[in-house]
């Protein structure tokens, strides 16, 4: 049990758990709105932002790189919105285009920076693709805590508006809820969490911690508040287990380990949760017996 008290484990676990709790809560909105994969596109699209921020400021400071990531996250969403609203291109295609093009741009910039002797200390860039939680610093965790707290605070303030907006958009308009404001808020919270989470989970897999907790929550309950609480808890628990496993065994990266624990939790929920497959089978058997 030495691991549980080691300094680096506490730092990393603290960061990932708080990140996963906030992502679980905020991600629920996109999942219930049927926009889960926007997080995937934005996650990939933040990558060139990280490299450009590094090129401009010449340092691997997370606080600087996060700004680049946020700007490119917003830019990516702007393009997705523009393309889908002003042409016959579907959301599905637009996401694939933005995801791959932005990531491609990131790759061009990365190869430029790494082949150029004017830039030093460029190895750290790779950490943002797959995540490298083991290298997380105390300052990285502070940034995660700040983003998570601000997101959760905004979420709490706008809780009632968000709830009505998610479940009944037409009604929400009649009682004067600003649709654009809700969209912008959700988007900014999502982009902020993705950007601060890059170093922990990586650009490719970050979408998982935004989607899966919400799906688990929605399998266990129909009530919005319960879904949020279950999503937050399952995110947090998986982050803790994943971080523990990756610290205890060599060669297991933290991000993928967290995602694997979330996936196992999801499979269990799919089978045993009240809205899962198990209860469906039991119900259909009961119905069969009645007939």
């Amino acid at each position, binding site marked *: 049990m030495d691991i549980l008290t080691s300094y680096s484990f506490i730092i990393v676990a603290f960061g990932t758990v708080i990140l996963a709790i906030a992502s679980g809560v905020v991600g629920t909105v996109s999942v219930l709105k049927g926009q889960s994969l926007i997080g995937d596109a934005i996650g990939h699209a933040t990558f060139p932002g990280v490299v450009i921020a590094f090129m401009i400021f010449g340092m691997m400071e997370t606080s600087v790189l996060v700004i680049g990531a946020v700007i490119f996250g917003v830019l990516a969403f702007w393009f997705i919105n523009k393309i889908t609203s002003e042409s016959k291109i579907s959301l599905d295609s637009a996401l694939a285009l933005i995801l*791959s093009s932005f990531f491609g741009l990131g790759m061009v910039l990365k190869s430029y920076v790494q082949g150029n002797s004017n830039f030093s200390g460029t190895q750290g860039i790779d950490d943002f693709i797959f995540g490298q939680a083991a290298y997380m610093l105390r300052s990285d965790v502070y940034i995660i805590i700040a983003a998570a707290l601000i997101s959760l605070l905004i979420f709490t303030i706008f809780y009632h508006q968000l709830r009505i907006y998610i479940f009944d958009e037409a009604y929400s308009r009649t009682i004067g809820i600003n649709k654009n404001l809700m969209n912008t808020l959700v988007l900014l919270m999502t982009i902020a969490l993705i950007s601060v989470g890059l170093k922990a989970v990586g650009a490719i897999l970050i*979408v*998982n911690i935004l989607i899966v907790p919400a799906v688990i929550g929605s399998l266990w309950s129909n009530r919005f508040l319960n879904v949020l609480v279950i999503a937050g808890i399952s995110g947090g628990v998986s982050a803790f287990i994943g971080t523990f496993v990756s610290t205890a065994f060599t060669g297991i990266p933290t991000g*993928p380990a967290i995602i694997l624990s979330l996936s196992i939790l999801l499979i269990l929920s799919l089978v045993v949760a009240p809205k899962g497959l198990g209860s469906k089978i039991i119900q259909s058997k009961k119905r069969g017996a009645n007939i």
Partner: protein
Amino acid sequence: MIEVFAVLLITALATSLLGVFLVLKGQAMTTDAISHTILLGIVLAFFITNDLRSPLLIIGATIIGLLTVYLIELISNSKLVKADASIGIVFTALFAIAVILVSRYADDVHLDIDVVLMGQVLFAPLNRIDILGFSLPYALVHLSIILLINIIFVLLCYKELKVTSFDPIFAAVSGFSATLIYYILMSLVSITAVTAFDTVGSILVISFFTAPAMTAYLVSKRLSRMIWLTLIIAAFNSIAGGIFGYFTDTSISGSVATVSFITFILVFMIQKFTLSHRKPVN
């Protein structure tokens, strides 16, 4: 150098041809999922053969590609999870397993991050194969065969592809097996993706699949026209991007993806401009 561009061009043609139907069917993100998860197939097959050139890698990747499609369908058909969320769930889980396997057990082999993400088209001419007395790059031969298979598939199943893309309900009524066509298409997507994997990497191949078809889709109303335009745009993107990457000494597949995006945005803007300046018809 010519050989590098030839490999890029053939890759672009083979992928974008299938991309036409992926864009029309709204399956671009399913392809994204496949292109990530085939890494798991490659890793597993590699553990069995210990040879990165083994044909078993293609078989392994294709099986995992189909498994990905099947799992996504299974989860979203259960009505427990929305379709887009199930894509996100399945690909991240399988990709995470692959990353763990690579970093825990295969850290010393050449399956490193940059190859997975960017491919290495520059090295393509180094692996050669003799055919009829000619020494050709292995990747070129490989991809040409895939291109040929894809062309034959589109020619043979043109009518079925057309009907299932534009009118799935009519297709079902008139007895086409939309599911069969879909699974054949997705098998070819997996095979093409894993063959192109070495050359352009697992994420940028999405751009090769979708960007040319999306650009063509903006300006075409007929399927045949869309296919021709797609192939022309794919050829242009791959050569222009290839030249840029080659001479600036940056990631070639990344450059192709960037150029493809610029092409799309230009066509998008020109089309918007001409539409808004067209005289209203009474």
